[in-house]
């Protein structure tokens, strides 16, 4: 059974802190994605990666960076957390980066920035 795991289900951080969200997949997928989900806005793509050490900006990359040192692991970094980054963060992986295949999602991390 395919699996995408995220390091935390809930996280509370203070404004200005550096925050790391980790995602691991066991499907040997080359493509991984980070989304944030806010009420009424659906999922918005922050960053994606199509190979180890490769990354591309999504629709809302400002205030975020990513790291992909190993194929199975994709990290999202909030360099200096702000209250407007309070959100649900979802990681996904896929066989395809252009949406021609389904995406497999982790359970999400609900981040609260105080």
């Amino acid at each position, binding site marked *: 059974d395919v699996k995408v795991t995220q390091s935390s289900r809930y996280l509370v951080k203070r404004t200005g802190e550096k925050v790391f969200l980790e995602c691991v997949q066991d499907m040997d997928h080359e493509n991984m994605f980070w989304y944030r989900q806010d009420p009424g806005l659906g*999922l918005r793509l922050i960053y994606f990666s199509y190979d180890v050490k490769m990354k591309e900006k*999504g629709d809302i990359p400002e205030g975020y960076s990513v790291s992909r040192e190993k194929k199975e692991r994709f990290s999202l970094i909030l360099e200096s957390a702000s209250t407007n980054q309070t959100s649900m963060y979802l990681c996904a992986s896929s066989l395809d980066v252009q949406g021609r295949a389904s995406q497999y*999602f982790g359970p*999400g991390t609900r981040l609260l920035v105080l």
Partner: protein
Amino acid sequence: SQQGEEDPQALSIQEGENATMNCSYKTSINNLQWYRQNSGRGLVHLILIRSNEREKHSGRLRVTLDTSKKSSSLLITASRAADTASYFCATAGGYNKLIFGAGTRLAVHP
């Protein structure tokens, strides 16, 4: 933007009834996908329909695609309380990534 937009935003039905959700989009697509999200959880892929397909079935799910109207519908037959969730359509076209709509919240009452 080719973002899918779901309609209605919320739907409340009784167990055993059918639930229909619609998705409209703006530009040409390669495929359209439907996902389910249980409260506070990640999304689960339900079904993918390609642009050259008109209808697809999976268990109690039936998806139709009308590319001339740029719309899709998801029908859940004989709904159960466990179907209570949010349902999202996502479109993929050209070199674009998957773009998700804001979702339909379905509540199925016992």
